[in-house]
């Protein structure tokens, strides 16, 4: 009787361990919810406290964009320390490869905007402790290459002002997938969501 109970207990424990290992990718317990957008960590060390994600690593949004050849805006709120960075990856594969990359990197009191590793604009001066808000349009359906517009501020005010920068990716490059996500380098993110493109050209 005791042996039977022990055997059953071992089976239950083993089954629980196996169940908790989850699928090929992240299980629900690894999801990082951020104001309505669920992210799945892909690599690195990311944590969430009081609705703010921080650390160094890469995470992909669970729900994809409308399609590969689509145009969307992305609204993010973030903080970057000196030398840190935040990269928005759009229209990428589910492992965030082969997409459009818009990188925000802080050099002291300036946050520089880079596309394809080239500086294309910058924010007004800010401190490391300041939370910056940006709205980024990515039009992945243009024959000249992905068209990227970056505004300072939220989506409600974007489009009423001139963007900080408005480059096309070089050589007509476009993102190859329909997923999006973020890559943090010592950064914190408190908001990240997407919607229809602001600039309807």
């Amino acid at each position, binding site marked *: 009787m005791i042996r039977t109970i022990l055997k059953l207990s071992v089976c239950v424990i083993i089954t629980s361990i196996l169940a908790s290992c989850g*699928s*090929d*990718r*992240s299980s629900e317990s690894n999801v990082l919810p951020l104001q309505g957008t669920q992210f*799945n960590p892909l690599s690195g060390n990311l944590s969430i406290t009081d609705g703010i994600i921080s650390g160094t690593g890469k995470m*992909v*949004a*669970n*729900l*994809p964009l409308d*399609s*590969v*050849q689509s145009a969307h805006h992305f609204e993010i709120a973030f903080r970057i320390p000196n030398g840190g960075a935040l990269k928005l990856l759009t229209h990428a*594969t*589910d492992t965030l490869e*082969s997409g459009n990359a818009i990188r925000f990197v802080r050099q002291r009191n300036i946050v520089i905007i880079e596309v394809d590793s080239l500086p294309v604009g910058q924010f007004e001066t800010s401190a490391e402790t300041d939370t910056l808000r940006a709205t980024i349009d990515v*039009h992945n*359906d*243009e*024959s*000249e*290459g992905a*068209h990227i517009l970056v505004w300072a501020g939220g989506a409600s005010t974007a489009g009423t002002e001139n963007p900080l920068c408005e480059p096309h990716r070089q*050589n*007509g*490059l*476009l*993102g*190859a*997938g*329909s*997923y999006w996500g973020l890559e943090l380098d010592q950064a914190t993110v408190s908001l990240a969501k997407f919607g229809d493109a602001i600039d309807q*050209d």
Partner: protein
Amino acid sequence: MIRTNAAILLGSLALSGLLFAENVNSNDTGLQLSIAADLLGEVSTIENGGGINRLDAREAEIGVMAPIDPYLDGYLSMAAHREDDEYVFEPHEIYLSSSKFIPRSRIRAGLFFLGIGRLNQFHRHDWAFTSAPKVQREFFGVEAASDAGIEYSWLTPLPFYLELRLGVTSGWAYGHAHGIGTQPNFPTHYLRATYYNDLFSNGGIQTGLNYLGRRNSSGQWMTLLGIDLTAKWRQDRVLTFLLQSEFWRRQLIQDGTPTETTIGYYLFPQYGINPSMEFGIRFDGYAITSQQDALGNAIANFDYAIVPTLSYHTSEFATLRLSYHHSSDTTSSIEIGRQRFIQLQAVFILGAHPAHDF
């Protein structure tokens, strides 16, 4: 802005010169000039219903054609339409064509609407309805996919109508483009086979099988496969019944791996009430069949539209059209977007009498 205004001014001056020239639409040079105007008003019936909520001149198009010499014909069409807050005047088609070099063959070279599908081969003001179905907008453009290249059509010497067509165009731009686009890794190319069969009671049905491919500068292959079907019954002046439909599948492939597969279609049956009036209802469908979340779970999605349309022709040269656009976009059984608006369209043609296609 200045460049646009200059283009409009130059175009207007050229047009004025043509209109006052004695040989317009005369037999001296065979020059034929026609102008098509498309006026559109939309009113949303719900908040953010998708209509433009005003009356607007959607497009004005000038078409000019003439024999150039005994071997070549020339065709030019320029269109003014609204982009953002201003009217843009740009070429739609500029090409040479000939059916005199190779027997049973037509060749055209230049800038033209790609000879593929059904809607893509017609200018929007010639459509049987007001606006493009979603599959046309997404796969080809708001009006049509056009590009510069060369197209060859050959009518097979069979006892029935079967035409084969091959086109190759530069592919620098496909769909949305602000400028000349970017050189692709492989140009746009397409094939079409068109078959026709008579039906009972003065009817006929034309079926087209279509393929289009292009590899953009990012190395992504786009392939389109489609079938189009047009059936017509005509009694004297009355188009008693029209059935027009297209079904398309688009696949995007990156580095040998399919990244997205989409299907889209429309079906438009139309009944001729009398010589002046027709009523039809268009059914549209669109879905990304490969859509998955980041965990690999399939995401069900389906966009549909139902567009009843009433057309009234005062003559061959003017049409008034009233339609109601009812559409819904759903993802995972949740409606994420809806459009409800009424459209009133007026199309008229000045100048040369355009010949009717099937």
